[in-house]
């Protein structure tokens, strides 16, 4: 018998009799405006966020923050003269010198400030992790309250790879001192974009 | 109503005043108390060491002593919990089941059965409460700090009825003192360190008397206090609730 069959038969003979699956009926008090909650939690986990009216406004803010000569790469809408557009021809290993990556998330979660990004919004899977600074744009009305709502939003949608990103990469492995920027981005900036 | 007084073995032998105060307190509050003379030990030392099968004779003896009483009251959360969780009988499981239901730790008996609203007690000292784990997490005498739920505390509720008492809060309100039954010798180093840390929390808050519902935890902390030559005393909660000048 293969290990597979041995394991499955051992599990089958040892598993208890069938217990029905619990319904997830958790009521959540929504006492705070989702946008302000999202921004408050994001700040608490080391990110920065604000509401903006346009991409021009985003570009202005980023121009002030980052050296014009630094490499910026964007997935989704194009940023002529400001950031190069993602191209499938690049080898992900050549993303090492990307200073800023600009990506667009499907939605954000207020309770933990995570944003949901699927592979098609990343260009390469490695991009949101290998860049030094991550910028994420979220349509302002696309904020859900909790992770329960988040998975309702995701539903049965197809993706090959997707991730929740909550703030910059971080570690507290050295004496519980929080350090932003472990192996992934050192900073994460979110823009809640008002719909034109 | 007749309440059987269940006196843990180490209280019987080393802290008789705790049982005396418990008895007097119950009588003062109008209970008719019976002390079954042939009781020994609930069997917990064996059971917690993995030898539950050696505690069966203790179970039988317990049933023999306490069968037929309306309530069983014990000045120890730990021994009460042991009976509540583990008392069984090969020959008379119905009686065992009933005894598991009617056994009460002293403070819960006062708040839940007698439902007392005031006490004729006075104790003019700074007092801090050690929450013994089995009373706390097993009998739920107080709300546990790990749970996200409204706070309450049966022992505190009673201590607040005592005239002149000043209750002192701790940094870690319900951390274990490290007594743990045979743990106190089989894991001597950690047990003592836990005890020292617990005692220091009380001392930092300038307490004069450490109280609690379990004399075993207090005995362990007393041993440490005395070795430190600290003037701080330990007193079982019955000694305070029954105290009058």
């Amino acid at each position, binding site marked *: 018998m293969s290990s597979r069959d041995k394991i499955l038969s051992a599990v089958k003979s040892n598993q208890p009799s069938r217990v029905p699956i619990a319904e997830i009926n958790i*009521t959540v008090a929504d006492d705070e405006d989702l946008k302000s909650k999202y921004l408050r939690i994001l700040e608490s986990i080391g990110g920065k966020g604000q509401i903006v009216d346009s991409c021009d406004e985003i570009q202005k803010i980023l121009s002030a923050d980052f050296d014009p000569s630094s490499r910026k790469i964007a997935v989704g809408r194009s940023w002529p003269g400001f950031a190069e557009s993602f191209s499938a021809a690049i080898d992900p290993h050549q993303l090492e010198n990307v200073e800023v990556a600009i990506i667009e998330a499907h939605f954000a979660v207020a309770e933990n400030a995570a944003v949901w990004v699927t592979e098609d919004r990343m260009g390469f*899977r490695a991009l949101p992790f290998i860049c030094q600074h991550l910028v994420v744009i979220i349509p302002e009305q696309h904020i859900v309250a909790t*992770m329960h709502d988040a998975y309702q939003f995701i539903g049965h949608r197809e993706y090959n790879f997707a991730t929740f990103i909550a703030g910059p*990469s971080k570690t507290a*492995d050295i004496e519980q001192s929080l350090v932003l920027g*472990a192996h992934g981005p050192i900073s994460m900036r979110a823009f809640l974009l008002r719909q034109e | 109503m007749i309440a059987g007084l269940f006196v843990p073995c180490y209280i019987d032998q080393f802290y008789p005043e705790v049982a005396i105060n418990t008895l007097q307190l119950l009588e003062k509050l109008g209970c008719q108390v019976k002390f079954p003379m042939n009781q020994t030990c609930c069997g917990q030392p064996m059971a917690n060491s993995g030898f539950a099968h050696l505690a069966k004779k203790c179970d039988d003896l317990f049933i023999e002593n306490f069968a037929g009483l309306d309530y069983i009251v014990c000045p120890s959360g730990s021994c009460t919990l042991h009976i509540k969780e583990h008392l069984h009988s090969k020959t008379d499981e119905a009686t065992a089941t009933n005894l598991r239901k009617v056994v009460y730790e002293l403070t819960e008996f006062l708040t839940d059965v007698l439902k007392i609203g005031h006490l004729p007690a006075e104790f003019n000292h700074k007092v801090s409460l050690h929450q013994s*784990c089995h009373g706390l997490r097993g009998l739920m005498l107080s709300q546990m700090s790990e749970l*996200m739920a409204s706070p309450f505390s049966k022992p505190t509720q009673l201590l607040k009825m005592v005239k002149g008492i000043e209750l002192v809060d701790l940094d870690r309100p319900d951390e274990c003192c490290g007594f743990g039954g045979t743990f106190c010798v*089989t894991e001597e180093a950690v047990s003592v360190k836990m005890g020292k840390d617990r005692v220091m929390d009380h001392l930092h808050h300038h307490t004069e008397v450490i109280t609690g519902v379990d004399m075993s935890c207090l005995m362990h902390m007393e041993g440490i206090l005395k070795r430190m030559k600290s003037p701080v005393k330990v007193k079982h909660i019955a000694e305070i609730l029954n105290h009058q000048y």
Partner: protein
Amino acid sequence: MVNHADLSEKFNVDEPRVNWHDETLWWVRQKRDRAAKQIPEWEELRSVASSIKDNVLSNLSEYLAEFEKNAKQNGVHVHWAADADEHNQIVLEIIQSHGIKSIVKSKSMLTEECHLNPFLIKNNIEVVDTDLGERIVQLAEEPPSHIVLPCIHWKKEEIGDLFHKHLGTPAGNADPIFLTRAARAHLRKYFLSAKLAMTGVNFAIASTGEFVVCTNEGNADMGAHLADVHIACMGLEKIIPERKHLGVFLRLLARSATGQPITSYSSHFRKPAEGQEMHIVIVDNGRSRQLGRLDFRNSLKCIRCAACFNTCPVYRRSGGHSYHTAIAGPIGSILAPNLDMRNYADLPFASTLCGSCSNVCPVKIDIHQQLYKWRQVLVEEGYVTKEKSVAMKTMSSVLSNPSKYRLAGRLGRWILRNAPFLAKNRWNLWFKHREMPEAPKNSFREWYLENKVNKK
């Protein structure tokens, strides 16, 4: 044979260090409390999580088969390992079939449990652990002491010295930001050159065949997305039925572990990237046996948050290595005896049964009750010393017999009053650091006879 009591006695030789270790972990417990307090429905979430896991355990073989089918459809290679050796062999074969000599690995307690690193090194494969804490203990040639905070027992000055020796950082620099940046630069080289990356698995979804890996550092993603081959190893209990159940577990996991609302990254791997190869190794290693133990099967609900470590008053004062097993702490003490009763017979006794572990557990495992039950099993199976058995039998014969009990009590009190040296000596472990209680002349029973019975 090593045991918890001896190892923790050694740990306690340096008392200020024990204080530091205790306070550091208590701080994590407090962060967990604060995070949980933000969620009014916290206790309800724990109940739901626990009951989802009840369903999982009762339906595990079906969910595993469903997961396998879906993962294969997604183009993922699925392997099954009955034990640690088979797991290690499968991993080695994948590595060797690609002619690879060096790999990166993000945190996986399963690979620690299987002792994968020493096995690969013996087979001339270089393994670089990429979680900062794991890299630190790896450089120090030690196992992790905590499943979430692997080097929580290390002081920053010691890490500074370690990095000076291995990474060439300036001597004496112990600044956490500086040291983290140094590790970032050091590990980037490996991320960019590794052809194969290993990760653990936090959750595997039966209905979609995808798996979720949670990290704060981004190291699992850096490794997996830049390598040609990704191997993810999972214990077979990691299955959950559907995506929506992640909503429950991801709300609980990081809050319980570190007090964060969620980890920085919760990555959902469903299909390999174009040109990439993805493997999943599903490991039993005693889990199916534990599933058959009625009293202990709930231990398989564990999501490895380590909240029980941080709250455990014993763990905080004995350190992770005192448990001499890959998964330390209260949960480790109920998992380890299933793997090897003889070696781990000490662990269920390394607890006061205070019950704090069960209260913080996000999936409501009755940890302290299982510790009690393991004690009974270990005694029954003969894994306690003869001395202890004899002592317990004697104790039981005295405590269950009223006249013997009274006699022993009188004798004991007489000794303490009249010949205290018989009790207050170096053979008495109680007396080593604690005074004996004052022995009264009369027991309560004697008082009762005199004052209540005879007076009537």
